[in-house]
């Protein structure tokens, strides 16, 4: 008997704003001019924060830090598409997501300075604490999405991870689980091309990460991750699908980690300057600026004001983070269990 084709698949890619600042008007999501400026200012704030955090680390004022430089559009564009009722499960590189969702920047510095209290979000802002072991939070997002569905809540759950994370078993288990139960989940892969020193090609033989969705029976799309409009639009659509009961989506934001993996890394050991320079020209802020300039939404004057605003917000965050009192060492006993154990009580007595 002849072989049959049981099914065939396609892989989608969305680009709206190119490197020269030209947008495909037919694909543009409906965003007011005011919101476009908000996008830009938020990316600027995230970048300003990031550069400051790198400096603070160099000066020994915070610990090891993971930079988001280059990934601002992926983070801000997706985060600004969320609703207050949605839940976010970040990895360790989502400082821009935290900022865009309104978590105070000083708290992010407090966290990277080695203080768990920096991750405590205000009530109603549901960002799960940073997850360090790669992709192990993907199942948490699937489970939270199952709870959302069980309760019948009008919400979706978003998980962020990188290209390296897609090689982990938990990525597979989480997406498989979410697909099986058609859960209201959105999986955002920031494919920044490098997992420390290992390039994207070493993570998978698949041509794209987006196509991994096919095997889970869910929606998948690759977007230009340096194009904030494409990221925003794809995330909105994925959230809508999720909330309408149409199941999860995997979004691959095709972007680049302009900085080292963390402050403990030296990327010049494993990648070329030419490659980094190529991605410089694809900068997410630069292209939005060019677009805004064409639309008369950007002037030198505006840039100066926006930069000053971002700088003063980060100045304030830095000051506040450094003025936070150290936690009482005895405080660490309070969060292992709901109540102190017999042994902990003794340990506290002897502390």
């Amino acid at each position: 008997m002849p072989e049959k084709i049981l099914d065939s698949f396609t892989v989608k890619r969305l680009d709206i704003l190119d490197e020269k600042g030209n947008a495909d008007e037919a694909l543009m999501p409906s965003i007011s001019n005011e919101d476009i400026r908000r996008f830009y200012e938020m990316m600027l704030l995230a970048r300003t924060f990031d550069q400051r955090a790198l400096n603070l680390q160099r000066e020994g004022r915070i610990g090891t830090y993971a930079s988001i430089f280059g990934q601002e559009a992926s983070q801000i564009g997706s985060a600004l598409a969320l609703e207050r009722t949605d839940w976010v499960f970040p990895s360790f590189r989502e400082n821009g997501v935290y900022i865009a969702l309104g978590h105070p920047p000083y708290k992010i510095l407090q966290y990277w300075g080695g203080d768990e209290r920096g991750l405590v979000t205000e009530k109603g802002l549901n960002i799960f604490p940073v997850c360090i072991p790669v992709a192990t939070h993907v199942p948490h997002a699937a489970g939270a999405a199952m709870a959302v569905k069980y309760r019948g809540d009008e919400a979706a759950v978003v998980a962020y991870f990188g290209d390296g994370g897609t090689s982990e078993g938990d990525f597979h288990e989480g997406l498989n689980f979410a697909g099986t139960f058609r859960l209201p989940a959105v999986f955002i892969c920031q494919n920044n091309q490098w997992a420390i020193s290992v390039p994207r090609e070493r993570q998978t033989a698949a041509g794209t990460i987006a196509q991994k969705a096919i095997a889970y029976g869910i929606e998948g799309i690759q977007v230009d991750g340096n194009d904030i409009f494409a990221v925003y639009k794809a995330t909105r659509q994925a959230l809508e699908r999720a909330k309408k009961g149409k199941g999860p989506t995997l979004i691959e934001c095709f972007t680049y980690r302009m900085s080292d993996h963390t402050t403990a890394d030296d990327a010049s050991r494993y990648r070329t300057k030419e490659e980094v320079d190529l991605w410089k020209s694809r900068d997410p802020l630069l292209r939005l600026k060019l677009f805004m300039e064409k639309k008369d939404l950007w002037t030198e004057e505006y840039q100066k004001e926006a930069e000053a605003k971002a700088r003063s917000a980060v100045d304030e965050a830095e000051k506040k983070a450094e003025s936070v009192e150290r936690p009482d060492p005895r405080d660490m006993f309070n969060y292992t269990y709901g109540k102190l154990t017999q042994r902990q009580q003794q340990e506290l007595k002897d502390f």
Partner: protein
Amino acid sequence: MPKLNMVQAINLALKEEMQRDKDVVVLGEDVGRDGGVFRITEGLLAQFGPDRVVDTPLAESVIVGASIGMAVYGLKPVAEVQFEGFIYPAVDQISNHASRIRSRSRGRHTVPLVIRTPYGVGIKAPEHHSESCEAIFCHMPGIKVVMPASPYYAKGLLISSIRDPDPVIFLESTRLYRLLREEVPEGEYTVPLEKARVVQEGKDVTIISWGFMLHRTLEAVEDIDAEVIDLMTLNPFDEETVYQSVKKTGRVVIVNEAPKTGSFGSEISASIAESAMLYLKGPILRVASCDVVLPLPKLEDYYAPTAERIKKAISEVMKY
């Protein structure tokens, strides 16, 4: 009062808790249509429907990982891992997340989760179906480890575990599932976590055990004036009850089903040495499984502690 075996008692606990609280959901491999490979969840799917009794894909990490997400969102999942020997893919989730989320979020998020899993020798199954690896979980601050030894206590401890605000590993001896029946009241009662129970009082020797090994211990002490303690919760364990007994008898034997090196019995032994050494008349002895890879069923009886081996240890400490 009905006499139930441990399978029925655990089933009853789940049923009653699910009736009481809509947030309690059960998930795992084969827990729905099949009622679980040991029939622990039998009838739950029919009574509570597929949204609350969830047959999951065959993947331990996501069973536990998704349960963590559900628990953080506000549900009270009771996850089943089919055999303790298969729990290792989920140990990452248990150790790196379930145990730490309260701390990582400084109390903003908690994980009220129960992971039930059968353990231990005695059912003539292939490799990986007979492990007793409770000590691993006892070494994870933030996790509670509970091991019931009879139907009555299994029901009461499971209810307490479900209501507990922290993650609980609930280890059920496969050997005990149908070994004995006892009176198990219908309706609500709880057995508190973190409390040991004195199964029988005695003055010559304290024997500390849990799970199936408690029954081997009881066989071994028939002619001895032994105080037998069922630890019930291993971590955090009830130090007070243990030390009080040791101070009374001055002799200690600890019986556990895990291999001796690094077993939880070792922790109890060290704790007694630290806190009640001056009351001891002789050495603390551990009766444990051999420090070998768990053999297939033909040699199983030579591996785990028997009443004979426990008796021998008792007569050893009675020399002092």
